[in-house]
């Protein structure tokens, strides 16, 4: 979990489908893709259902599978995808047949390597001397693959930052869902960022994905008045199950260079220079929410653990855990919903102290509102030096605007709290954790939010209720854009 692509622990344990950094155009494109996927699946299902209407009681016997436009895929890959249809010589029920076809369609779409998948079913004569009453069919899958090469360029402006980017994608390189992506970004906060991402399904299974990221970037960390240059390799295996539970294992090797330009904190000065990270982390995610950005029902639970210290040149070894819980309830009587969120994490330094670049930071428009970005917790000469233990959370009441109940604009009332402290190793862990039981910073706000399908926009009027002297508070208007909010 580094400071860049995986820098914030909480960010790191997000699912891959996080769209936090997408531009509006990309989000729109993603939305259209999703709509298209849903539409295609539904269309396929309806078609097949009507086809089999007359034969719903008949058992189905699949004689073989025909695939058109299959030349862009490897034989072994195709065999894996269609294995479920060909696995048995026995007849299957209509429901089972439809489920298998839908499953195959979903897998192809999940891999992002097809534009469309059309399924037709041909009835064929049963073999001579066949005694059964099964309906003998041959499903025909017409695959329309995506473009192999894709490039785009553009600019992003917003959130106090502007940048330009260029992106190249090579899809389905070896005929088994292998993709190569290259991103280059240059902006005001991210001075430069280059990332190469090679990803592929594991064992020809769309539910398991291997990602290999190579990156070099330089970013401004305003809260410690320093620039951080990172170079690293991240290898990640994660699942994409349709069910609520998913897993992620991440191996990260990262070289970070902290270059101070204006901090007077001795901690920042002392930690300037090179730091290496060689970590292994595991995350588990349970997600049953009906919407990722503004759920009205469902639960989201995640827990992650990370160990950094494999290599002898790791200067700041640690064990880190972080978790998040979000519960959403609908209150139809009040045309409202309630979202309760809590996050917590602990970093236990295995050496004398922890790195500024590994610690937790809280506060900001997407976090504990009414405080500046990373504005809570320990400070040293105006630098937010972060903490090793934190607890924050909030309750949001989302209410329909009267007479505009169908609108994506909602009224938002919230209370947020949070506390971030440094680990004092001279005390026990329990004593350190006790610090989280009192003296939380607290804020309240009311505002308007817009729930775009790909992100959430908030414009709030915020006031701090309780604050520490060291906290950087924000009174008045505060706006936030993102996919993950307290």
């Amino acid at each position: 979990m580094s400071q860049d692509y995986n820098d914030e622990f909480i960010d790191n344990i997000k699912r891959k489908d996080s769209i936090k950094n997408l531009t509006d155009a990309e989000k729109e494109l993603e939305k259209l893709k999703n709509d298209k996927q849903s539409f295609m699946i539904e269309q396929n299902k309806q078609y097949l259902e009507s086809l089999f209407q007359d034969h719903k009681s008949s058992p189905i016997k699949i004689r073989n599978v025909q695939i058109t436009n299959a030349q862009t895929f490897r034989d072994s890959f195709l065999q894996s995808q269609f294995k479920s249809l060909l696995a048995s010589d026995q007849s299957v029920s209509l429901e089972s047949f439809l489920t298998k076809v839908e499953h195959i369609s979903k897998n192809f779409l999940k891999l992002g390597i097809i534009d469309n998948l059309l399924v037709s079913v041909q009835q064929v004569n049963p073999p001579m001397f066949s005694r059964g009453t099964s309906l003998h069919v041959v499903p025909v899958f017409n695959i329309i693959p995506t473009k192999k090469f894709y490039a785009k360029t553009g600019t992003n402006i917003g959130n106090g930052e502007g940048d330009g980017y260029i992106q190249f994608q090579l899809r389905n390189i070896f005929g088994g869902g292998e993709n190569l992506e290259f991103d280059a970004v240059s902006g005001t906060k991210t001075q430069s960022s280059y990332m190469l991402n090679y990803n592929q399904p594991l064992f020809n299974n769309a539910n398991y994905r291997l990602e290999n990221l190579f990156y070099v970037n330089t970013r401004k960390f305003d809260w410690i008045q320093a620039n951080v240059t990172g170079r690293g390799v991240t290898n990640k295996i994660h699942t994409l199950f349709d069910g609520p539970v998913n897993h992620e294992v991440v191996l990260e090797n990262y070289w970070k260079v902290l270059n101070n330009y204006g901090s007077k904190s001795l901690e920042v000065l002392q930690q300037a220079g090179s730091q290496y990270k060689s970590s292994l982390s595991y995350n588990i995610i349970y997600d049953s929410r009906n919407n990722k950005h503004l759920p009205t029902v469902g639960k989201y639970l995640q827990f992650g653990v990370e160990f950094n210290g494999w290599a002898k040149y790791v200067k700041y070894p640690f064990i880190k855990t972080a978790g998040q819980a979000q519960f959403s309830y609908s209150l139809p009587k009040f045309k409202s919903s309630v979202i309760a969120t809590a996050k917590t994490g602990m970093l236990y330094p295995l050496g004398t102290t922890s790195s500024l670049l590994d610690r937790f930071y809280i506060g900001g428009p997407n976090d504990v509102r009414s405080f500046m970005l990373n504005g809570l917790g320990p400070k040293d000469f105006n630098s937010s030096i972060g903490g090793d233990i934190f607890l924050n959370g909030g309750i949001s009441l989302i209410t329909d605007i009267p007479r505009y109940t169908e609108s994506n604009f909602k009224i938002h009332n919230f209370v947020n709290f949070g506390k971030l402290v440094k680990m004092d190793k001279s005390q026990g862990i329990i004593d350190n954790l006790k610090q989280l039981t009192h003296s939380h910073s607290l804020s309240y706000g009311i505002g308007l939010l817009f729930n775009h399908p790909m992100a959430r926009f908030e414009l709030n009027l915020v006031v701090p209720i309780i604050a520490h002297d060291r906290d950087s508070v924000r009174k008045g208007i505060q706006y936030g854009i993102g996919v993950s909010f307290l």
Partner: protein
Amino acid sequence: MLQVPQTIKTFFDAVPVKNISNDHTKLDDINIYHFQGTSNSQAKFTLAVFNTTQEGDLIIPTDPISLGYTLILSHKSKFTLPKENGSSNCGIMAMSHLGSPNNVLPVLIEDDNLRNIKTLDSINHDLIENNFDSHEAKLVNSLVDSKFYDVWVQCILNEDLPYKVLSELFGLDETIEGNVVLRETQKYEFLTQVANWNSFKLRHPTLFEQWTRTNYLKNYYESQIGEFAKDLQLIIEYLNNNSDEQSTLIKHKVAGYMISIDKFLKSTKLGDVVVSQGEFLHQCYDLLV
């Protein structure tokens, strides 16, 4: 202009409703080696240097400029050089050059009511402003600041020093020595920074054209070694003929170069020149008390 209503002003002034005073956050222990003795001045300062080494029971900076300024500071403040358990408010600490606002060390961290970080340029300027009134002394000091520093930078760039030596001198991470990729990348990055010190690359851009493929920089360094030998001889003569406060400060500065080069770069061309001035070198070591 739109006036904010008084009620709103009052409301926002009233929040936060409760202010919690800061709980005591224990900051990381910083390894500062304190000077010994007590100064008449109440000033509290720390000189941030590349790295430190043990000389007898004394702790001294490894690079010439930091060592020179440590000697000057201890002389001016009537301290003796830092030890493991020094007792004063002031001291030296090792940190990466990337901790300095302009990526050059030493920097002087002054802690009065406010913290002030003075870069090397600022330290040099203050030293001249507050201590030098003779034109001759100013010229000699300027010679040390510019030409000695230049030849030192060139020595680092040209002598192909082993990573271990660079690590000792500049505090580069010694744990990566066994990893060829990290070691060479780190070394390359560091040497790229060194070229910018004292604005050397800015003043000699042509020397760095196709740096790795041409001998411009190497040839220039070799010519400068001869110059350095002559300049050192002249300065030694000046110092032998003058014993005022200004020449004492210059002697401390030069001693920084002599001791550091003798300790770490004896096998270099620069080292040959320094070792050839055995008597003066001995006088320099005598300043380490």
